[in-house]
């Protein structure tokens, strides 16, 4: 439900980077974990709306999903688990720590430098 807000924040971040470089955005690569609270599919659907009229319009959106993994300090093992069952599958310990799966990160922005060195603004924040 809040994917549009997240997408707008993404576009604003990418715009800052693109504007400083007088470039347009061709691809955005995100890391979204199942425990981030954000649905990748909804993010994909929100992106065209959030990016319309900005320098991200038409950019490809690539979403990398990290699996949910937990580290068990007793077994010293990292295991892949379900998002609502963060127990160590080896020993059943519930005092584990999350090793991956809650990412909500803008990893990479790919840009295309404009051929014309125009100084026009690349959209409003």
């Amino acid at each position, binding site marked *: *439900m*809040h994917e549009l*807000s*997240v997408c707008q*924040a*993404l576009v*604003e*971040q990418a715009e*800052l*980077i693109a504007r*400083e*470089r007088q*470039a347009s955005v*061709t691809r955005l690569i*995100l890391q979204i974990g199942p*425990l*981030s*609270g*954000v649905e990748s599919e909804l993010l994909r659907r929100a992106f065209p709306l959030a990016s319309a009229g900005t320098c991200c319009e038409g950019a490809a959106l690539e979403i990398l999903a990290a699996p949910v993994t*937990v580290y068990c300090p*007793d*077994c010293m093992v990292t295991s892949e688990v379900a*998002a*609502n*069952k*963060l*127990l160590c599958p*080896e*020993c*059943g*310990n*519930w*005092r*584990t*720590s*999350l090793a991956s799966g*809650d990412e*909500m*990160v*803008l*990893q*990479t*922005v*790919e*840009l*295309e*430098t404009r*051929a014309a060195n125009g100084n026009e603004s690349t959209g409003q924040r």
Partner: protein
Amino acid sequence: MCDTCGCNITPGNKHLVEAGGKFSHSASGHESVEVLQNLLSENDHQADHNREHFHRHGVLVINLMSSPGAGKTSLLEATVRALGGKLGIAVIEGDLETENDAQRLRECGIPAVQITTGSACHLDAHMVHQALHQMSLDNIDVLFIENVGNLVCPASFDLGQHINVALLSVPEGDDKPAKYPVMFRAVDAVLLSKTDLLQVLPEFSPQRAETALRSLASEAPLLNVNVRSAEGLQPWLDWLGEQIAVFKSARETGAMGHFRPVTGQAHVLTHPHLSQFTPRENDG
């Protein structure tokens, strides 16, 4: 901002923009910038700013989250009735529409600012910042932020609070932590509210609720709360009192930035079926 976009070139990072570096331009005019920044970094920045504001005023801030109707406002009313004379309490209320909840709390005699979010399903740090412009934190010890009733979105947005608390009301069912792991993983305490209904809803098992919570690797205490009686409110008041005491000592030593909620297991009133968690013989 320049440290987030690669334009701040120093001798230490110059190699990055030279040929082959991760910020280098390719011949075709394509460029790839490694950002590795949280998507909500602007919200997080504002949240840090809010937190600094709270620290300047020495105010402990608690973000209350739950489904709609779990009893957040009733809990606050009962808390104010119990502690209002001894403690400076203020509330920021988040709802899609109406001033109803803020009005209820003003009638209890405390300052309350309502944020109406329109269609937004959560509060964010900027909305809280706006609300702070409308309220004085002088003589306030604890500020409660009553988030929009929703077990999904509020979990993703830092508001500048020190403590996250979720209410899980008995009529909702004991599997809520398993259904909403992002929310329940994020909280420092879970209040099992409306426990007076346990006698008419035997299908709700507090033990199953706690098992679901521990399955999220959470040490958050699960407190039974019934705001209709003094005894029913006591576990929450005890826990709150402990947080306030720890925060006050952090304030006196100027270490509010290091404040962490106390999540001692001593306050767990129900106990999980530990059999599920007992280590089985490790056969490698």
